[in-house]
């Protein structure tokens, strides 16, 4: 289990290699990589083209929130390995923002846990996106679809 919040980019191949080396119980590794999109798309239509995103976060709380989400994934699924790397600072379109990787003996748990982690980190970890657009700076608002995606994992 590991969580990192950093300004620098990450090497997906090297991260996955390090995550799985020495653990031969892993049969499936599910990976999500989030990238900066050049268009801000919301509710199905394109809005502003962006020049860059600046991700602000709450040092200390961010790491604690991500660790809590990761621990919850380990409680719900039989996981052998997990990694969350989230960047902050200024990022341009095409750059990587986030890496979530989950290893399990079987693919079903790996896929589900990976999706769960992405859904929950969007709504439970203290990150905020500021878009730099040709029309000026604009804070990204919360997206109802993200709340719905996160809510489906809430235990009834």
């Amino acid at each position: 289990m590991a969580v990192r919040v950093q300004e620098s980019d990450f090497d997906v191949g090297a991260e996955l290699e390090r995550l799985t080396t020495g653990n031969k119980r892993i049969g499936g590794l599910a990976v999500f990589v989030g990238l900066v999109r050049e268009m801000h798309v919301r509710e199905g239509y394109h809005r502003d083209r962006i020049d860059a995103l600046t991700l602000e976060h709450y040092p200390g709380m961010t790491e604690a929130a991500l660790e809590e989400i990761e621990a919850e994934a380990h409680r719900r699924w039989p996981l052998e390995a997990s990694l969350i790397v989230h960047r902050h600072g200024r990022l341009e379109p095409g750059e990587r923002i986030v890496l979530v990787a989950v290893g399990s003996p079987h693919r079903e748990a790996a896929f589900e846990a990976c999706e769960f982690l992405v859904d929950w980190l969007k709504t439970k970890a203290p990150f905020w996106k500021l878009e730099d657009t040709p029309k000026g700076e604009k804070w990204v608002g919360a997206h109802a679809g993200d709340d719905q995606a996160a809510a489906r994992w809430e235990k009834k």
Partner: protein
Amino acid sequence: MKVRYFAWMKRTVGVAEEDVTPPAEVTTVGELVAWLRGKSGGHAEALAEGAAFGAAVDKRTVPFDAKLAGAHEVAFFPPFTGG
């Protein structure tokens, strides 16, 4: 105690953080919000009733009826938009 503001709230209030000493009758996060509104126009706007923002006490998300007793750091922020 220290109060911190994030994202657009920081710009609206005008500072990223400040040390405050609220009166003894301020015992919950919600009461702190009401008291902070009186500090400046920026505070009143950022912390306005009905504005969409959340709070954390000592780096844990809390509801507005959470008690402030023993709190070192209270933070206010808009909904999260990471990932």
